[in-house]
Structure formats: structure tokens, C-alpha cells
């Protein structure tokens, strides 16, 4: 029996507690960083696409809940009396919850974006407008309203905003498609970068794979060890990147709320709403986090299988 020496190492109970694939390596840390950055970028794209889709749905919904009656000024008619008649007809129409007559000043103010401010429009026959609020529960019977108006007031026209809604819809679809396109490109880049980083990280462990192989480990066991280890790297990176993106959107929503009074904030809000992601947006980012972690694990397993296959010919 050899002489026992007192050495400065713990001599407590020994256990097989360490994973076969090393937990903390430079390659693993680099992979985590790469995954975090790429997940953050992909999550920003996914969030932006979800924001635009969500805001465009709000635009269209808002436009669809309104209709407008326009009355032309005619010499032989009392425009204010006609407005009252039209509002009365509208309010009796099923699906219309409210009809508000715009005053002459309010109607003239609608022309300001085209004619500019400071003009005296009192001599012009400015058309008058009634804004109808439609019930959100069911469709309003606008055909009946159109027929009733035509019968009672020949100078009245009804605009149900369908052209505006169609244009808004087209524009929103184009913006959402562009955002999805960018998201898919980032996703492809994410996959490529993760694949090459994972392969590099696995390659840096080839000595370990070799020794496990020669000591009698089967391929499934070795690949499983690396899959678990790389799932942890991928999950950590994806949580950092995806969590960062969620924090970004939450912070942007907070800032948007504080800057609401400024003109530029109004423009931004018109385009992106209040920057608040809906559950679908957050769901997309969470799905991305899970997907990235699984992708990393899957690539590492495939890489190890391929390496073992090549090693044995």
C-alpha cells in the first residue's frame, strides 16, 4: 500500500457529478454571446413586425367603426335643417350608435391640411359633415342609410371609408410583409451563425469526444451529453437576447408614454401605436427563445454524430 500524503485537495466523498462535456469553456461563452446578440436582433424584428401588424389592425378597426355623411351647400335649402334631418335618419339606422354634426368651424378645419391656415372660408360653400359612430357588435345597415338619405336629401352623400380602409390595409400588409421578410432574413442569419459557432465550439471539444469514443461510449451517449450542454448554452444566450428585446420594448413603451405630448411622439405613435407589444408579440419572442435553444442543441448533436461517423469512416 503506497504511503498516503496529505495534499491540499478536498478528500470528501467522491461523486460523478460533473457533466462529461465541459460546462464553462471559452468556446461556450463565445457561443452564448453570439446566440444572445442574434436572438436580440431577431426578436427586435419579430417585435417590430408584430407592432406594425397590431397597429395597422387598430387603424383599420378605427376607420371601419366610423362613417361620414357629407352635405353640399345648396342655395334653396337650409343646411342646418338638412343636417338635423340627416342625423335623425342616421340615428334610426340599425348599427349606428351615434351621429355627431360637425359645426361649420369644425368642417372648415378639416380643409386646413389642404388649404393651409389663416384663410377666411366664410364665403365658400364649405360642405358640412356628420360623423357616424358605428356599433362594434355587428355591421351597420349602410345600404339602407344610403337609400333613406337619397330619398330625403339629394345633396347628401355617405362615405363608409371602404376606400381608406382598403388603402390602409394594403399599406399595412406591405409593411408587415417587409417586416416579416427582414425577420426571416435575420432568422436565416441566426441559424447560419449559430450553426457555425456551435460547430466551432464542438470542434474545440474534439479531444473529449475522441477519448469518450475510445473508452467505449456509444454515439448516442456522447451526442446526448453535448446536446444537453449546448442546449444550456443556447438557452442562456437566447434568454439574454430575447429578454433584452422584451426589456427594450417595455422601455420604449414607457418612453412613448412620457413623450406623448410632443409632435414627433405623435407621429411615432400614429405609426407604431404606444410600442406596447400584444401577447402575440411576446409569444413570438418567447417562441424564438425556445426555438434558438433547441436549434443550438440539435446542431450540436448532429455535429457530434457527423464527427463520430467521420472518425470511424
Amino acid at each position, binding site marked *: 500500500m503506497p504511503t*498516503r*500524503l496529505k495534499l491540499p485537495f478536498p478528500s470528501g466523498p467522491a461523486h460523478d*457529478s460533473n457533466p*462529461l462535456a465541459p460546462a464553462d469553456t471559452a468556446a461556450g461563452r463565445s457561443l452564448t454571446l453570439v446566440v444572445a446578440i442574434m436572438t436580440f436582433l431577431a426578436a427586435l424584428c419579430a417585435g417590430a413586425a408584430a407592432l406594425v401588424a397590431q397597429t395597422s389592425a387598430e387603424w383599420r378597426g378605427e376607420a371601419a367603426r366610423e362613417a361620414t355623411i357629407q352635405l353640399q351647400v345648396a342655395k334653396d335649402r337650409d343646411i342646418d335643417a338638412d343636417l338635423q334631418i340627416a342625423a335623425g335618419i342616421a340615428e334610426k339606422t340599425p348599427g349606428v350608435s351615434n351621429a355627431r354634426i360637425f359645426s361649420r368651424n369644425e368642417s372648415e378645419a378639416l380643409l386646413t391640411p389642404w388649404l393651409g391656415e389663416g384663410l377666411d372660408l366664410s364665403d365658400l360653400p364649405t360642405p358640412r359633415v356628420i360623423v357616424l359612430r358605428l356599433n362594434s357588435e355587428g355591421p351597420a345597415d349602410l345600404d339602407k342609410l344610403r337609400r333613406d338619405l337619397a330619398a330625403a336629401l339629394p345633396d347628401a352623400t355617405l362615405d363608409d371609408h371602404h376606400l381608406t380602409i382598403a388603402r390602409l390595409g394594403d399599406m399595412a400588409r406591405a409593411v408587415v410583409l417587409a417586416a416579416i421578410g427582414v425577420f426571416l432574413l435575420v432568422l436565416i442569419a441566426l441559424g447560419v451563425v449559430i450553426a457555425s459557432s456551435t460547430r466551432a465550439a464542438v470542434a474545440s471539444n474534439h479531444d473529449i469526444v475522441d477519448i469518450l469514443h475510445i*473508452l*467505449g461510449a456509444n*454515439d448516442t*451517449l456522447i451526442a446526448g451529453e453535448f446536446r444537453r450542454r449546448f442546449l444550456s448554452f443556447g438557452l442562456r444566450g437566447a434568454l439574454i437576447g430575447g429578454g433584452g428585446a422584451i426589456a427594450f420594448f417595455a422601455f420604449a413603451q414607457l418612453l412613448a408614454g412620457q413623450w406623448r405630448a410632443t409632435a414627433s411622439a405623435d407621429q411615432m405613435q400614429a405609426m407604431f401605436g404606444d410600442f406596447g407589444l400584444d401577447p402575440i408579440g411576446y409569444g413570438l419572442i418567447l417562441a424564438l427563445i425556445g426555438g434558438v435553444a433547441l436549434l443550438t442543441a440539435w446542431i450540436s448533436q448532429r455535429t457530434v454524430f457527423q464527427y463520430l461517423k467521420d472518425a470511424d469512416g
Partner: protein
Amino acid sequence: MLSFENVGLRYGDAPETLQDITFDIAPGSFQFLTGPSGAGKTSLLRMITLSLRPTRGVIRLMGHNLGCNVGKDLALAVGDQGGKISRQDIVALRRRMGVVFQDFRLLDHLTLYENVALPLRLREREETSYRAEVIELLEWVGLGDVRNARPPSLSGGEKQRAAIARALIARPELVLADEPTGNVDPTLARRILRLLIEMHKAGAAVMVATHDLGLMDHYALARRLVLADGRLLAFE
């Protein structure tokens, strides 16, 4: 247990490193494989561990006929019926061998205990079934007090003894040791040789690759296989 018949090995288009190698190893035998550095000792051992394919000839290992092949896409080896040897068979053959590497090849992120227990862990055995056995072997090779240390903090001799313990823990039928005394002083070299002789006495066939002629003199009963100029000479 193991026989080589006219085995040749060539790397790429270079001349053959090993030519017409013919020898056999009987169960329970002890042999030194010697020759100058670069003679091909490690290559020969790697062919036995199925890490390297011969370019010609036949290797018979524990009941399997392992032929050569010329294509990367062909099987590593061809079995008795001419079919491919399965990857499961390769794993099973490797589990019947214990290998001591010249550069130890211990896993730095594992403790000595974990390194020595590795072959049993890879067989998916429950730790409770082998824990006492591993600790006893570590005591036997004089490493009981450092069983929780990691390889980077140990001396070359300690690493070498740990590598030997790892090769022996699963009670292999064939022990292959590549320059097991290459990194230690003569006293420790003799101690390591004694460990291998103990294993031989326990029934394993042992092949020790070394260029240390002095070490071979310490065990006169061993057969000597000499590699020179790519050919092998056997001295009983």
C-alpha cells in the same frame, strides 16, 4: 485474442509506414512493443483500438475479422460474413480493451475519481455499483488522497498512474499502454510497470509500447516485438 496478418498502413500517398506486419497476442500474455521514435508504435496501437484503418491485410480481434478497405465511405472493417461490422460491435470491442495514452488524455474538467470511473460511467452503470471499486483502485495506485483533484493540478507521474487506473478499472481483457513511462522518472517507471504486471497476473493480455530498453529488462518474461523500418520482428 489479436492477430495481424500482412497488415500494411499508408498515410495518403506516402510510402507505407508499416509493412507486412504479422504477429499475434495470446490471452493473458505480456509483450513489449519497441522501436525507435517514429517507427509506427502508436499507429499500430491505434489500429488495434479501431481508431485507424489498415490499408491492407487482415486484423483478427476478439472473434472479429477486421479487413482493410480503400474508400472513406466503406466500412471500417469487414466481418466474417463479409458484412460491415456495426458501430455497436466497435463500441463492444473497445469496452473489452483498456488504453493508456502517451499523453494521458485525462479530462481536465473532471476530478481524478471521475476520470478513473469514466469507463464504467460510459457503460451507464449506477455509481453506487462502482464507487468503492474506483476508490480502492485509486488507493492501490497511490492516488487516494488526491481523488477530488483535477488533472491540471497534478504531476506527470500522478496523471500517468490515473491514466493507468482508468485503463484497468473495467477489468479489460486487453491492455494497451503507449509509452506509459515516457514522462516519469526511473523509480516511478518501475512502479508503473509493476501495476501493469499485476494486471497481467490478473489475467489480462498486456502490450506496452516503449522505447525504454532499460524498462524491458525489468520484466524478462515478456515477449518483445520490435518495429524497425516499418517491419516487425518478434523475439519470444
